[in-house]
């Protein structure tokens, strides 16, 4: 993450300076003529790059800017800045909260995937200095944001890693490193999984040379309560298995562990800001590979809950690994609520596109809180139903339930299957009475193009949402 410093007084001439302006606010005299000539009026998203010297990047905040508008302005300004070593933010005209939010936007915009190029392309700035009379107050406002930012960017870092680098073992090692942050990390390997009957996770991971792992991250917090449970799908690469995916677009499947990455990011955020709320993340890590030992359609597997599942499509592996992880989270920790995040279905992309994640669950209050948290951090959700019919479609002749509805069983010639709803109906079978929310983040975990909160690539969707949800709902004294 970009280094962020706070300094009293005006910035020097050396680094380009970001100057955020609300719509209708008068620009400082030095740039007023230029702003007027270029018809810069402070509209949200508007950017005016004045070469200077000193170089000034005017960025519009729109009317009555909230924190999200400020963050987006920070991202837009950073994008306009291009390849510079350092950048400054002039907070003279801003309340400290807004200045902190713009700085957070700069940090989000300055994120880049791990550099694997011999000759790296454009380098974003490494340091941001926030200048102005309110620097100290802005610094105080930035501190809690920094934790959530770190979580989001960790999620992006992990998600960006190619699968030959982020193997199941490497993923587990990266998570173990979070012990330095005050998290307790436990990694369970194949022997442990076999002993505890994690038949679903083991089946999915069986085709790969990298063995499956169950990672458990704990943040003890301060409150004497059982921990909130976060469950993440961590498929480091998803070939589809025996039901192999088409080649086109398959490279994106390295991001099929984005749910687990978001949970890990949220745990880091809680630790960084010393949240009083106890939390635990249970991450199901596996590679869904094609191989001689791979599981097959028609196989019946016994999950950790002892319930049996008939495999219909080996490419619907996410719900299987989540079934075991949800069961473990609920039985081992008795959480007051459990949330799972997963890049689970293509159907949710057809349903909601790339602008909202699908939200399913069993408790209205929890769902409403999750949706509210999402709106606050710019990671919007939309509720989708689990109907009686969706569950009926999962009836199996041989096992307790089918993993999904077979291709060809849908409407209009069999093509149209509400698979996101089916997946949610499947997961619900493993959560019992515990209040539960399921976020299907397929479609929002990465962006094809630069987006409002960062460059093209992984978005870290979910990490900031979970952190905010914890702050909103799980930090009160019992």
């Amino acid at each position, binding site marked *: 993450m970009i280094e962020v410093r706070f300094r009293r007084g005006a910035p020097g001439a050396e680094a380009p300076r970001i100057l955020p302006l609300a719509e209708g606010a008068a620009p400082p005299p030095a740039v007023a003529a230029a702003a007027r000539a270029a018809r810069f009026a402070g509209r949200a998203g508007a950017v005016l790059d004045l070469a200077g010297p000193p170089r000034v990047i005017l960025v519009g905040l729109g009317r009555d800017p909230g924190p999200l508008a400020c963050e987006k302005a920070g991202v837009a300004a950073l994008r306009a800045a291009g390849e510079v070593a350092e950048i400054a933010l002039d907070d003279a005209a801003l309340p400290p909260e807004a200045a902190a939010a713009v700085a957070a936007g700069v940090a989000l915009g300055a994120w880049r995937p791990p550099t694997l190029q011999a000759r790296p392309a454009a380098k974003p700035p490494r340091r941001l200095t926030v200048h102005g009379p309110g620097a100290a107050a802005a610094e105080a406002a930035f501190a809690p944001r920094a934790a959530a930012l770190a979580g989001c960017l960790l999620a992006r870092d992990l998600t960006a890693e190619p699968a030959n680098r982020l193997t199941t073992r490497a993923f587990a090692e990266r998570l173990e490193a979070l012990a330095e942050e005050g998290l307790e990390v436990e990694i369970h390997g194949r022997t442990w999984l076999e002993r505890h009957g994690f038949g679903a996770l083991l089946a999915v991971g069986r085709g790969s040379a990298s063995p499956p792992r169950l990672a458990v991250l704990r943040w003890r917090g301060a409150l004497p309560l059982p921990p909130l449970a976060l469950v993440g799908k961590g498929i480091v690469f998803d070939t589809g298995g025996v039901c192999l995916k088409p080649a086109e677009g398959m490279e994106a499947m390295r991001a099929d562990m984005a749910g687990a990455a978001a949970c890990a990011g949220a745990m880091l955020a809680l630790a960084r800001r010393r949240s009083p709320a106890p939390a635990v993340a249970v991450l199901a890590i596996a590679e869904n590979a094609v191989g001689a030992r791979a599981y097959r359609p028609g196989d019946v597997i016994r999950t950790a809950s002892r319930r049996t599942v008939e495999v219909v499509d080996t490419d619907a592996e996410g719900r299987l690994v989540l079934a075991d992880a949800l069961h473990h989270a609920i039985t081992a920790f008795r959480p007051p609520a459990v949330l799972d995040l997963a890049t689970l279905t293509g*159907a949710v992309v*057809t349903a909601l596109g790339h602008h909202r994640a699908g939200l399913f669950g069993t408790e209205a209050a929890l769902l409403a809180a999750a949706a509210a948290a999402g709106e606050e951090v710019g990671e919007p959700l*939309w509720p989708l139903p689990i*109907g009686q*019919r969706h569950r009926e479609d999962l009836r199996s002749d041989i096992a307790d339930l089918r993993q999904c509805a077979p291709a060809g069983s849908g*409407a*209009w010639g069999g093509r*149209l299957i*509400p698979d996101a709803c089916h997946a949610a109906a499947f997961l619900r079978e493993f959560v019992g009475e515990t209040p539960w929310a399921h976020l299907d983040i397929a479609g929002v975990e990465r962006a094809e193009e630069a987006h409002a909160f960062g460059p093209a690539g992984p978005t870290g969707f979910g990490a900031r949402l979970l952190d905010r949800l914890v702050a909103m709902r799980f930090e009160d004294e019992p």
Partner: protein
Amino acid sequence: MPDIAFVKPALPRAGALVLPLAEEAPLGPLAKQADEATGGAISRGLEAAKFTGRKGQSATLWAPGAGLTKVVAVGLGKSADLSATAAEAAGGAIAPAIAKEREAMVAADTLTPVLAASLALGLRLRAYRFDRYRTTEKEEDKPKLERVALAVADAAHAKAAFAPMQAVAEGVFLARDLVSEPANVLTPAECAERCKALEKLGVEVEILGPKEMKKLGFGALLGVAQGSANEPRMVVMKWMGAPKGKKAGKPLAFIGKGVTFDTGGISIKPAQGMEDMKWDMAGAGTVIGLMAALAGRKAKADVVGLVGLVENMPSGTAQRPGDVVKTASGQTVEVINTDAEGRLVLADVIHYCIDKFDPRFMVDLATLTGAIIIALGHEHAGLFSNDDTLAQRIEAAGRAVGEAAWRMPLGEAYDKQLKSDIADMKNVGGRPGGAITAAQFLQRFVQGRPWAHLDIAGTAWTTKDLPTVPKGATAFGVRMLDRLVADHYEA
């Protein structure tokens, strides 16, 4: 289709007797009388069948005595939870059980008169059958049921409660008939012709042909129609039921997509499942049925129903991907996919509706996208709206009649997916959020008026029997929107 009568409780001398029974409740007066007349055969039989009255449970006793051919017991569930929809479902469960009897009596004397009427409604809705093209069906396979008498203490009250329900059921049947008709029979012109039947109910019916629509500038609708030998139509139905003197209000408007067959056009659909595309006019069928329902029960509201009727065919005259058409609103559309034709038809009809009627709100119904089926499945229609009050009212009306709608999002980010390089918009926004971008497309034509869009692609047709709907056309939306009008917009 059986006639329904409400009668004072008295044991029938013959035929079938139906006993709707709540869970763990004693037999009602008429049931007890029957039990005594059969020397306790009924209570013994039900016990032997382990019948407890659980919701969905049923038991049949053959020739229990006293001249009865059969006794059918149907479980109502806990009497405390007995709602109108539960009573309808029980009525629906009765229909197949007595289909082969000529006459049946339902011992509804344990129910309130209104619930007895609901039960009768459910029975009738489920007894619907579209069999006009079966010519070789064996006599013994045909349903025989001619008359069902419901025994209710306050028969007059039940009859009064049933009258409006009966009218709505007729609207449902009309819609199901239209939707079930094959496309070689139900062309746009034929569908328009059938709307004229509504004149008998007091509905004003106006039919516009291609010439009139050309004059109105319906470039989008006509573009879709131009590939077919069957000319398009637009039908405008007016039911002016608001009490005279209070005519200040604007009418409510319902708009239906009526693609009598959708091959996809040049962007042709795969063969598998294409036969289903005869019901791509279900939105129009629903609006026509709704108008019949409202007029049939003399709803005290001014309502207009508009349907755009076209056939989407590939041919030498068909429109092509890449064509740019001008809608009645003046906005231009780049046709990327000729199979996204429903929204083109609706765009022109919506514009006309605003222009002509200045409506209080508009609700459109359309089997619009496959994406909505992938999003929600078959239990919920997708509901999109720019007006939260209207949306909540529609959801509530749907819940009350067992036609569920699920709110879906709209937003600028989705709208951007429709950006065209050559015209004001494309007619598709890609696979992601496909049902949402279709709604965004429609929203560009509503001029900010209160509007709701129901994507009924997943609910217009059912491949399995539902409690009050036999396999086939559901007429989803007729009852929901009738209820919407009844609950909020009648004087």
